[in-house]
């Protein structure tokens, strides 16, 4: 039932955000229309970080309590986290093309997202290697914890590294009026989409777990 509400709310908010971005908010002076990607690029980035933070928290909870439910949440949150990060990279590249004429710039923010993406791709690949459930949840949590701790340090060290492209992607946050409003609405829209997905994916994980149990029971019964 809650997924229905979240679906509706998410849909409405997304539409409102789109209307705001395309029609209401004035085009930014220096970068022109392309700057409008900003209003989705930043929310997606923040939501990605938030979803990996949730994974971090519930990974610790799983290690402490060994309750599979916590790992379901951690995994579901990481799953949409990876999708958000992929969206950051894609939109980042699309934004870079017109401005710098290249698809990829080693801009500090983009590169940090890319490394974060690599960490969590490894999170899922290693999880897929482990067939035994309990161990998969436990090792997944270990990676979820250490992976998340690496994100800030990676961001800082990339910022400092002289080789990367100095120009900041987004102008400083001198936002005002409708620009700020649009940003906040789209952040909230993304937030709702995040919860919508985690609710759904959590059920999927729980059902998959139950299916595995039922199959085991069937096997035992038939022996």
């Amino acid at each position, binding site marked *: 039932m809650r997924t229905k509400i979240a679906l509706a709310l998410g849909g409405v908010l997304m539409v409102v955000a789109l209307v705001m971005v395309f029609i209401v908010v004035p085009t930014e002076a220096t970068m022109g229309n392309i700057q409008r990607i900003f209003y989705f690029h930043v929310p997606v980035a923040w939501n990605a970080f938030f979803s990996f933070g949730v994974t971090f928290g519930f990974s610790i909870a799983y290690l402490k309590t*060994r309750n*599979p439910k916590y790992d379901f949440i951690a995994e579901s949150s990481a799953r949409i986290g990876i999708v958000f990060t992929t969206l950051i990279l894609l939109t980042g590249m699309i934004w870079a093309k017109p401005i710098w004429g290249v698809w990829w710039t080693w801009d500090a923010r983009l590169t940090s997202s890319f490394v974060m993406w690599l960490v969590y791709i490894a999170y899922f690949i290693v999880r897929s290697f482990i067939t*035994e*459930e*309990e*161990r*998969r*949840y436990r090792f997944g949590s270990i990676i979820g914890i250490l992976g998340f701790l690496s994100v800030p340090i990676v961001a800082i060290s990339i910022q400092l590294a002289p080789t990367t492209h100095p120009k900041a992607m987004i102008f400083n946050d001198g936002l005002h009026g409708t620009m700020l409003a649009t940003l906040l609405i789209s952040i909230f829209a993304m937030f709702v989409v995040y919860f919508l997905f985690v609710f759904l994916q959590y059920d999927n994980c729980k059902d998959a*777990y139950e299916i*595995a*149990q039922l199959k*085991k029971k069937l096997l035992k019964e038939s022996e």
Partner: protein
Amino acid sequence: MSHVIECQKISKRFGGNQVLKDFDLTVDAGESVAILGPNGTGKSTLIRILASVMRQSEGKVLINGSEMKDEAFALRSQIGLLSHTGYLYTSLSAEENLKFYAEMYSLKDPEKRIAELLEKVGLRTRRFDRVATFSRGMSQRLGLARALLHSPKILLLDEPETGLDQEGLDLLWSIIKTDDPDRTVVFTSHNFKSTVQACSRLIILKKGKIVYDAPKGDLTEDGLQALYHDVTGGKS
């Protein structure tokens, strides 16, 4: 005086499947408890939980009255563990293995204890040979020496007979008996002959539950075989 070993409502889940469910057990000093049962009923899991190598999902394990969780260090120096493998590094020599574990158990005078144990398990001549060159019987006896290194009050054995012939197994049991006759021993096994000789109390498990628990009395090997089959429905 509290029991040497006490399990209160021990449960263990691996992901989905429940290996042990509300398992209770008390063992007193000097007892030699045999735990039999078909494969997969949680015998090895129980031994590992008692040795604190594995954590129980629920329930309490009390060794000499104190809980493993709080007193892990003190209790582990009371417990010796021997499994199918002897926990030995095959590319190290017998002496190097025992020296390493002596340091891990922070023994006061390791030299004397190692010499004494190697003598006892009949491996004095093979002291400097690599464990890789040992026969199955010899490495199992060395594993026993490792388990007895810190002269533990409790000895846990998990199917020690794996890979041993009957003669090797009898030798193993005679060493255990002579080393410290009133040490508490808890062991799992599939070998009825040595079980009957070695145990003072018999427990049979089925699907993680105790279905038989009584002193050995005058049970013979065949008696045990018959008892085992009708209690567990024939699967050994």
